[in-house]
C-alpha cells in the first residue's frame, strides 16, 4: 500500500480530495494502526485522492485540553492549523472521534475551519453512493454484532445512525446493548482517562461496558474509536473472552467485506 503524504503531493502541485487525519492512536498504537491501515486500504480501493500529513501531523491537543492544560492545547492547535492552512486543506476525515470533535468544534475559533467528517459518516456515504461495493457475503451475514457508541461521536455530535447503517450494509444482525445511543455507557477513556490510572471505585468503567457488550451474546463488538477499541479489548481480555469475542472497528469490518 502506497500512502500519499501531503508534503509530497504539495511538491507536485497536487491537492487531495480529503486529508486523512490519522491521529496519535492511529499512528502509534499497534492495535489502532490496523484500523488506520484498513481505512487507508478502503480509501485506496475506492480511488479517492487522499493524503496524510505524516510526520507533520501533531497531537490535536485534545487529551491535554481535557486534562486542563490549555497552554499545551493552544500550542498544538496553533501548529496544526499553520500546517493545515498552509496546505489549503478543505476537507478532513479521521477515524478518531476525539480528533474529529476537536477539529470540528474547537479549531474553527482558532482560525482552523475545515469540513471535518468522521470515518463512520464517510464510510456510510461511500456505501450509499455505491463507491464501496460490499461482497455478497463478506462473512458477516446474519452474524450478531453489537455497536458501542463513542461519546464524542454520539452525545457530542449526534452521530448514532451512520455507524449502524454501515454495519447493516454488512447484512449483520445488529443487536443493541442495555445502554446505547444517547444513553450509551462510556468506555472509560475520554477526558484524559486513557492516560492515567482510574480513580478508586468498585469496578472499572471499561469492564462495566464490556459486560454490557458480552450480555448481548454478540461475537463481534464494533467500535468507531481507537480508544474505545482499546478499552473494550482490555475488558474482553480481563473477562477471558478473547477466543469467542472480537472487537473490531467499523473500517476493519468494511475492509474485510470488500
Amino acid at each position: 500500500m502506497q500512502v500519499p503524504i501531503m508534503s509530497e503531493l504539495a511538491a507536485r502541485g497536487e491537492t487531495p480530495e480529503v486529508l486523512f487525519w490519522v491521529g496519535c492512536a492511529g499512528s502509534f498504537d499497534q492495535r489502532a494502526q490496523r484500523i488506520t491501515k484498513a481505512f487507508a486500504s478502503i480509501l485506496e480501493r475506492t480511488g479517492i485522492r487522499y493524503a496524510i500529513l505524516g510526520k507533520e501531523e501533531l497531537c490535536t491537543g485534545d487529551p491535554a485540553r481535557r486534562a486542563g492544560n490549555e497552554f499545551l492545547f493552544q500550542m498544538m492547535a496553533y501548529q496544526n492549523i499553520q500546517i493545515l492552512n498552509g496546505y489549503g486543506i478543505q476537507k478532513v476525515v479521521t477515524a478518531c472521534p476525539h480528533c474529529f470533535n476537536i477539529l470540528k468544534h474547537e479549531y474553527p475559533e482558532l482560525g482552523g475551519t475545515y469540513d471535518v467528517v468522521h470515518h463512520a459518516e464517510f464510510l456510510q456515504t461511500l456505501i450509499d453512493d455505491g463507491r464501496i461495493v460490499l461482497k455478497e457475503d463478506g462473512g458477516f451475514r446474519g452474524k450478531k454484532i453489537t455497536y458501542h457508541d463513542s461519546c464524542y461521536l454520539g452525545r457530542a455530535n449526534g452521530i448514532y445512525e451512520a455507524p449502524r447503517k454501515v454495519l447493516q450494509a454488512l447484512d449483520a444482525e445488529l443487536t443493541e446493548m442495555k445502554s446505547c445511543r444517547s444513553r450509551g455507557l462510556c468506555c472509560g477513556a475520554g477526558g484524559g482517562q486513557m492516560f492515567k490510572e482510574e480513580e478508586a471505585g468498585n469496578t472499572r468503567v471499561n469492564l462495566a461496558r464490556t459486560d454490557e457488550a458480552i450480555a448481548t451474546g454478540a461475537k463481534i463488538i464494533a467500535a468507531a474509536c481507537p480508544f474505545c477499541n482499546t478499552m473494550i479489548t482490555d475488558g474482553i481480555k480481563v473477562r477471558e473472552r478473547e477466543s469467542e469475542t472480537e472487537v473490531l472497528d467499523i473500517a476493519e469490518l468494511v475492509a474485510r467485506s470488500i
Partner: protein
Amino acid sequence: MELLQQFAFVLVTGISVWLFNRRIRGIRRNILLGRDHGLTSRGSEGWKQMLLLALGQRKMFRNPLVAILHLIIYVGFVIINIEVLEILLDGILGTHRLFAPVMGVAYTGLINAFEWLAAGVILVCVIFLARRHVTNVKRFQGSDLDGWPRTDARNILVAEIILMTLFLLMNAADTLLQGRGQPGYTAHPTGNFMVSSMLHPLLQIWSDSGLIALERTAWWLHIVGIFAFLNYLPWSKHLHIILAFPNAYYAKPEDNGRMENMADIQREVLYAMQPELAPTGSDTGTPKRFGAKDVFDLSRKSLLDAYSCTECGRCSSGCPASQTGKKLSPRRIMMATRDRLEEVGRLIDREGEFKDDGRTLLRDHISEEELRACTTCNACVEECPVSIRPVDIILEMRRYLVMEESNAPTEWTMMFGNVENNFAPWKFSPEDRDQWTKESS
C-alpha cells in the same frame, strides 16, 4: 371582623411577596458573581428550547411513565394557581368566589377541572413519596442526598399534598354549606364539585358553624400555605420550576462536545509563536485566574445551573464514574457549587462585601479525586432535563489545578511532556508517526 380579615390578608400577602422578591434578588446577585459569559441572548433558538425543554419537558420523556407522573404534578400545580388569583382577589376585596357569578356554568367546570388535577397531584405525590422512601429507585439512594436534600424533597411532596387537600376540603365545606342554605355561601351557588363532594359524607355530621370554621380555616391555611411554599421554593430544589426556563433558554446543545476557549491563552501562545504580533508597551489588564478555584471563576451559566438543579440524579445515574463507584457524582458537583455560592452569598449579606473566608469551592466542597474521575462523556449533560452542564464546572476546575497549581497525576504530567516533546501523548518518536505506512497491512 370582615375588615380585619382583609387587613390581615393584605399584610400576609405583602410580607410574602416582599420576602420572595428579596430572596430572588439575592439569587440573582449570587449568579452575577460568576464570570460574564454563558448568559448571552439566544434569540428565537433560546425561546424554542425554553418551549421544548422547560414547558414541554422533552427530556423528561426519556422515561415516559415518570414523565407523565411529573407532568400531572406540574400541570396541576401551575394550573391550580389560576385559582389562587381568585383567592387573592377575594382576600383583598373581602368577597367570596368573586369569579362565580361572572363565569356562570364555566366556573363550576373550571373548578371541577382543578379538583381532578388536585386529586391527580395528591395521587402522584404519594407515588413519588413511595418511590423515594419505599421502593429502591437507585438515584434517590445516593449518599449525596443524605440529610437536608432528602428532607427537602419530602417536604415538597408533603406540602403539595397538604395544599391540595386543603383546596378540596375548602370546596367540600363550601358546597355543603350552600346546600344547607347558609347565607354568605348561597349568594354564589356553584353546585357540588366532582371530587370534593366525595368528602361530603365525612362532613355531613358537622354543624353549620363547625363547617364555616372549617371552610375559613382551610381557605386561610391554603392561601397561607401557598405563600409559605412560595417562600420555601427559592431555598429548595423546587426552584427548578422557575429556573428551568432561563436555563433552557441559555443552554447550547449544539456545543455538547465543545470546550470553552480561553482567549487569553490563545493570544499568549500566538505572541510566543509570532512575537512580531505582540502589542508593545505594558498590558494594563490584570490577568484573571486560569480555570476555576471558586464560584467567582465559574461562568454565570454554571451558577445558574447550580440553582436550577432539582437533585433528581439522572446525571449521576448516567455517569460512568458514578456507576462504577467512583467518588464523582455530577449531581453532587451541582449541589456543592450551590452550597458554596450560598455560603459566599451569606458572607456578603453579613459583611457587605466578599471577604476571604479561607474556603473555596475546590477542596472545601469538591475534591480533586472527583474532578479526576470524569471521562467528559457528556452523559450528565444529555440526561439533565433542565439543561445543566456539570461537565463545564469539572473542566474549569481541572484547568485551575493544572495551570495554576501544576497539580496533575504523574501520568498526566508525563502525557503533557510527551505531547509537548514528541507531539503525541505517548513516548514515541515523532519520526515514527508514519512508520505504519511502511509496514505491510
